[in-house]
């Protein structure tokens, strides 16, 4: 019988710069930081370590010297497991895949408790070097990479198409960055907490036209551990928990662009994944109290909000300008500050998004608390939202 899946505990380190220089006298190492978070997450959930049957790790960046990190951690924390010990990878969706596998282990009864976790350390690698690797990820190495296309270049082309089709403007898109930074100013684990104005955003140098520095993701390090268990176990704990009420996944069988021309900025996969998730949860988009969206650029949040049915097509940027997606607005989006300001240690970003959703649903979000938050959604993706994963979460207190 399928088990209902609950999120019972969690821990995260503030997004920032942790990675040490190879020649440092004292190093900050991924495993020491992550081990601390595992213990904190388990204390947060009040479960003994023996209950954990599954460790699903978002793979580390190649800069992490300790390889086969999942099995290394199983040893470091002396955690025998009967269900899963593995590392998963899928671009920006990596952390979401880790969560999904942990959910599946609980749902099927294979695991009593499961951890979805990861550490993404990359800040010491200069962006130009890092892009030498990431340019081989978001396209065809032989038919796209030779032109110098970078991951965010694809999003920039979404932006120009959106502006062209819907008569939107860079200013409208840029307002998303201002809103995200405002949210981040209320989030103690955000990488950038100083508020900014629309003029600040517009004044930044262009990175990929029409997107400037504040409209593309910063780079940073982070680590997160999320503890999942069956709802029965969560109930027995007597603690507040979050129920995974619905999930959706769809991969459209396309990598970056479809060779058959389509409406690229419709985010078809996200439309399908969110529809599945809403149906699975028995809700509609209008029932959501907030959404924590995977959006590496301003334009991506706009398009994702439209694909998830949180704003009409072509009106997502306008909704941001009008404050509808700000805390206190109709549907607050990225209350954490989002990838732009909370930060984007890419392989664990979906875990940070889940962390924020759980803070909101447990009423632990402090100054950025969405009032009476009961239902929230998280999304993550890979490529140009060619695959999307959506989770619907419900507060149980």
């Amino acid at each position, binding site marked *: 019988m399928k088990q209902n899946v609950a999120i019972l505990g969690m821990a995260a380190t503030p997004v920032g710069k942790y990675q040490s220089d190879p020649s440092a006298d004292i190093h900050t190492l991924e495993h020491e930081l992550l081990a601390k978070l595992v213990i904190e997450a388990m204390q947060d959930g009040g479960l003994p370590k023996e209950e954990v049957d599954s460790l699903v790790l978002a793979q580390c960046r190649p800069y992490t010297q300790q390889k086969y990190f999942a099995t290394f951690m199983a040893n470091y924390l002396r955690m025998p497991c009967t269900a899963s010990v593995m590392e998963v990878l899928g671009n920006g969706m990596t952390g979401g895949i880790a969560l999904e596998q942990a959910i599946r282990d609980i749902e099927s009864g294979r695991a009593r408790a499961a951890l979805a976790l990861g550490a993404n350390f990359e800040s010491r690698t200069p962006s130009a070097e890092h892009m030498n690797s990431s340019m081989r990820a978001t396209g065809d190495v032989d038919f796209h990479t030779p032109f110098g296309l970078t991951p965010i*270049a694809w999003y920039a082309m979404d932006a120009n198409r959106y502006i062209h089709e819907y008569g939107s403007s860079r200013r409208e898109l840029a307002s998303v960055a201002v809103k995200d930074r405002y949210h981040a100013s209320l989030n103690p684990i955000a990488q950038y907490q100083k508020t900014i104005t629309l003029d600040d955003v517009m004044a930044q140098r262009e990175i990929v036209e029409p997107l400037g520095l504040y409209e593309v993701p910063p780079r940073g390090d982070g680590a997160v551990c999320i503890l999942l268990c069956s709802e029965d176990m969560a109930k027995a704990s007597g603690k507040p928990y979050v129920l995974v009420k619905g999930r959706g996944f769809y991969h459209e069988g396309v990598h970056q662009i479809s060779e058959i021309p389509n409406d690229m900025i419709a985010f078809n996969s996200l439309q399908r994944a969110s529809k599945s998730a809403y149906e699975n949860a028995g809700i509609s988009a209008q029932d959501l109290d907030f959404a924590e969206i995977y959006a590496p650029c301003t334009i991506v949040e706009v398009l994702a909000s439209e694909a998830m049915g949180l704003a009409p097509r072509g009106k997502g940027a306008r909704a941001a300008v009008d404050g509808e997606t700000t805390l206190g607005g109709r549907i607050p989006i990225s209350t954490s500050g989002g990838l732009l300001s909370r930060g984007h240690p890419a392989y664990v970003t979906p875990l940070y998004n889940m962390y924020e959703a759980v803070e909101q649903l447990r009423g632990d979000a402090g100054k950025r608390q969405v009032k009476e938050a009961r239902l929230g959604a998280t999304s993550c993706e890979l490529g140009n939202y060619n695959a999307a994963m959506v989770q619907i979460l419900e507060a149980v207190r």
Partner: protein
Amino acid sequence: MSIDVIEKNRPRAYPPRPTECTAIFWEALEKGKFQTTKCNDCDSFTFPPKPICPHCWSSSVSWKELSGKGTLYSRTTIYAAPATFENETPIHAGIIDLEEGIRIATQLIEDEAIPIDSPVEIVAIRYTDGPLYGARKAE
């Protein structure tokens, strides 16, 4: 129906790797011929060219020349580039819908911004170490 060929007096920053299948594409491109594979069973084009049809999985495909004419679906200019491309910034790139019904992404070889939805054409570019392609505003 061949496309224009432009010479560039430098090597490619990141050369593609020809395979038994795609070498045919690159060799033809060097001579100003822009072609891809088309399925003999379901009549679908595919790009990049492949030894199989991704749509119906037939292994029976033929090379078909393309006109190189199309429309610019979107574009960008990349100012922050990978280390490999540091001498080539800013990089102009775009997504093009070819008139045969294929969407591709490639470089835009003119500095001025081409308007979205305006006509573009593919050109072959002969670097010192081999060819690439790119697009420019159509006449």
